[in-house]
């Protein structure tokens, strides 16, 4: 089996899918069961990561707020004891002074603050207190600076209707506070859990046409995300992707399968008769990307040339895929 290219893997370990925020762009309430990852499951997942020839970058984002985990500080200590670089995404609202100190004493390499709005808009979108979040983040930044900036900090900004015109101001606000890295995201439909008005969702029209177009252009229908953005849910199950908000496609436990064995299982999923439920309505799925363009052309929203542009874009993207994704599945 061709190995995945070096440095391309990220492992997202979901400590919990519970969250204290209620972001309007997040479909977390679609998650049927909510819980915290048992500590033993976390340590097993770390073992699985260390089994790989090339250790993936380990991060906790998942579908919830990692700092809600009752053993979050122990988790951070455990990762440090294994010498792994670790990072997490947080809304910052629970980043107390004590937790900040614990994080700074560990080997946490980076923190991504998920904070796409400020002030009243923040409270409308996140249903959290902006003053608390701002105070926590500013205090952490001060403590980090005093410690010589051991933790890389970034802000993730999801563009939506309220902030689209204000993103530059928000970035300037956090830049002034000492953050230099910013990740900008457009909203996706999170595996179909979010309705963002896409045509292809909940029907199968244009599927055959899209598959033919992929084939004619030498494009694989296999999604790259499950192989480069590995995802382990709080319950210790591997899933195809963190966008499987409804946990529709559990693939097996970290106690039973290595990450490499799981690669083969994931790959086989894409060659089964039925499309994996997690991908059926996902806007990251290559077939669905082409289908959406076909719908847009049909609706008169896009000229026919849009299809060629999109396939060219997909071809360029596919050139970066690991060999394993492009190879035939193992029988």
């Amino acid at each position: 089996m061709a190995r995945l290219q070096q440095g391309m893997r990220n492992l997202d370990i979901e400590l919990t899918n519970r969250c204290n925020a209620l972001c309007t762009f997040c479909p977390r309430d679609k998650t049927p069961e909510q819980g915290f990852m048992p500590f033993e499951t976390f340590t097993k997942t770390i073992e699985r990561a260390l089994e790989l020839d090339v250790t993936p970058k380990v991060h906790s984002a998942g579908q919830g707020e990692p700092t809600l985990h009752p053993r979050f500080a122990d988790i951070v200590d455990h990762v440090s004891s294994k010498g792994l670089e670790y990072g997490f995404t947080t809304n910052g609202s629970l980043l107390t002074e004590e937790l900040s100190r614990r994080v700074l004493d560990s080997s946490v390499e980076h923190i991504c603050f998920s904070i796409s709005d400020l002030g009243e808009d923040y409270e409308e979108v996140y249903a959290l207190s902006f003053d608390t979040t701002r105070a926590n983040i500013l205090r952490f930044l001060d403590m980090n600076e005093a410690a010589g900036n051991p933790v890389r900090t970034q802000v993730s900004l999801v563009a939506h209707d309220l902030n689209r015109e204000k993103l530059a101001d928000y970035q300037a606000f956090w830049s002034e506070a000492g953050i230099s890295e910013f990740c900008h995201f457009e909203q996706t439909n999170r595996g179909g859990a979010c309705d963002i008005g896409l045509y292809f969702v909940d029907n199968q029209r244009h599927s055959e046409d899209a598959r033919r177009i992929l084939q004619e252009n030498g494009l694989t229908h296999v999604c790259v995300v499950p192989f480069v953005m590995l995802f382990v849910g709080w319950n210790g199950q591997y899933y195809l992707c963190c966008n499987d908000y409804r946990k529709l496609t559990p693939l097996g436990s970290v106690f039973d399968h290595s990450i490499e064995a799981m690669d083969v299982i994931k790959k086989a999923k894409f060659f089964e008769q039925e499309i994996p439920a997690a991908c059926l309505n996902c806007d990251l799925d290559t077939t669905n990307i082409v289908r959406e363009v076909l719908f847009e052309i049909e609706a008169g929203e896009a000229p026919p040339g849009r299809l060629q542009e999109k396939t060219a874009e997909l071809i360029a993207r596919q050139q970066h895929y690991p060999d394993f994704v492009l190879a035939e599945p193992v029988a």
Partner: protein
Amino acid sequence: MNELGLIVGLSVFAVVAFLLVHLVWFLRHVKKNTQASAAASPDSTPAASADSDTIDSEQAASVGATVTDEPQASTTRRGVRAFMRGNYPEAFNLLQPAAEGGNLKAQQLLAKMYFAGHGVDQDREQYLYWLQRCAENGDKPARAKLKKLRAATG
């Protein structure tokens, strides 16, 4: 003079060719849309117009999806689409009937439109009204926001 004639001739040819290509594309598009409209209900989106290809409700339920062959559902989808693209007046017109009819997604977006003044005048009363409708419809964030707003106003 001959050179000028050639330039003018080529320019005219280029303009005519350009117009022809776009005319053909336009006519094809009109033809397709006419066929689609004839086959579908007046209010349906392209996504909802081919009944034979639409997954059935059992399949949809198995993946937590909703079938979009209901006229209201397709109108809502177009409304959501317009909202996502910042076409707020169009979004408002499409979403308001669905919101009145009890569609949660439409209600959520209407609340946001009144909150932000998207396509409508900013209106706190209307914002709170739609937030209340969302809360009654089982929307957890709306409930939390209302609770907080009530606590703030005593």
